[in-house]
């Protein structure tokens, strides 16, 4: 027989496991009724989502979120997220969509709906001091490599190359630890590393992106699983298609000084031809 404490513990477990599947309302109708849409964006990922000197979150993905809000005729609420919490924020209903450099992977598709066509793509690379003389991914074997919690490739780098990943909550902490010599390299999206290096900030003058980018993955807008085939998902899908067809994404890339991505050119050609 269960003790009284045991019964409560079981009830708590069942309740916790049962939560999180309660939200099934149509998000498009909800957003329009509330006149407000909440988007989860990054605030430490220049120039996709970062803080400007006045403390506002700006960037390419923020522009995308603004465009979506404008099309819906609603107010935009930006919620800063990190890799480790963005999907929970979405499933719990704190935000209505994720536009936060999220790679579309099969594991994640079990938890969130991924909007197609995807709006960007990145691969994995490392930022390392030139003095480390890294040439191949296998040079990372047995070395400490800084990373960010929740990035999908941490596990792959750890398993494939036996690197020792030390991961931090956010990008600034991980970069600080790299500069302090806690690790030999920082593993992250090549897009971020490229734009960090091309910003010509003197603190990164002695750093490089020495490896061949690996494992390219497209970035998708994330919505709740119930929404992906519903009206909200269809609306976002059509919007994303239009972004590609009209060259809006390529224009934004230019606006934010991002190195042109072959992915966007390919997608533009594909949709413009239709």
């Amino acid at each position, binding site marked *: 027989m269960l003790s009284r404490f045991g019964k409560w513990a079981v009830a708590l*477990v069942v309740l*916790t*496991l049962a*939560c*999180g599947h309660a939200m099934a309302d149509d998000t498009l109708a909800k957003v329009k009724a509330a006149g407000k849409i909440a988007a989860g964006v990054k605030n430490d990922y220049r120039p996709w989502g970062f803080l400007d000197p006045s403390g506002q979150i700006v960037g390419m993905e923020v522009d995308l979120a603004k465009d979506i809000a404008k099309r819906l005729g609603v107010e935009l609420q930006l919620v800063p997220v990190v*890799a*480790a919490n963005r*999907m*929970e924020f979405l499933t719990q209903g704190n935000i209505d969509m994720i536009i936060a450099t999220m790679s579309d992977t099969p*594991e*994640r598709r*079990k*938890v969130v709906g991924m909007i197609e066509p995807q709006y960007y793509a990145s691969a994995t690379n490392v930022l390392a*001091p030139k*003095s*480390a*003389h890294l040439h191949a991914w296998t040079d990372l074997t047995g070395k400490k490599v*800084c990373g960010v*919690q*929740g990035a*999908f490739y*941490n*596990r792959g780098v750890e*398993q494939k190359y036996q690197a020792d990943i*030390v*991961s*931090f*909550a956010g990008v600034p*902490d991980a970069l*600080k*630890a790299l500069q*302090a*010599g*806690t690790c*030999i390299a920082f593993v992250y999206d090549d897009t971020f590393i490229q734009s960090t290096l091309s910003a010509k900030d003197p603190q990164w003058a002695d750093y490089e992106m020495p490896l061949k980018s690996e494992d390219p993955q497209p970035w998708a807008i994330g919505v709740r699983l119930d929404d992906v085939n519903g009206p909200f998902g269809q609306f976002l899908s059509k919007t994303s298609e239009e972004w590609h067809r009209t060259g809006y994404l390529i224009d934004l890339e230019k606006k934010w000084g991002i190195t042109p991505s072959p992915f966007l050119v390919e997608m533009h050609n594909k949709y413009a031809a239709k």
Partner: protein
Amino acid sequence: MTIVEAFKHLNDAYGINLSIVYDPFDRERFVHGFLMTLLLSIVSMALSIVIGLVGAWLLGGRSRLLKGATTGFVEAFRNTPPLIQLLFFFFAVSPFLPGAVNSAGQVTPLIGGVGWAIISLSLYAGALNVEIFRSGLEAVPSATREAAESLGYTRLQAFRHVVFPLAFRISLSALNNNMVNLIKTTTLAYAIGVPELLYASAAIWSESLNVREMMLVMLATYLLLIAGYTGIMNRVERALRMPGTDV
């Protein structure tokens, strides 16, 4: 059906994803996380008790300088949040210490994340232990101390053989509370990338996307860990019971 298959089935059929049971990679991370939590707890406990004893000894001494320094240390570490102390050591103090140059020509800190976590946790819990031992020492009747001294004990001898054993027994329950708190505080090491239990769990849930399951597993693990510790300490308290007193 093996246990591994059963838990895979639990995930596929019911969406209850306990990847630490069926996925060897996640399991290893979780076990390592648990061992790191144990290591942090045990080493920090031992060091914090030493710090507490030394501090309490200095507070009872004659040197005003040492007394003042000890009081300053206690106040500084008792009155600031332990997370801030940890971040301060790791991000503000560490870069200014001399480092070693590794094979890649990089200057690497001599003390890594684990080292700073142990130092920071020991100082934090140690500051509280100073106060715990001081109050224990003050609770020893001065008549007892005088009796020891009249028998020819030096101050150190009286402390070692008479005052301290009594004071330690009096302090034991407050000390245990602080040590339980210390075990829980080891989770802060997560913030500087020390792969303890919370870090391992966070890595697992952000990749296997099983937040709820891992939260429950983590809660249960800490519950068992601390229940184990208090179980042992209750036995110690009973074994050290002083007949004729309240403690």
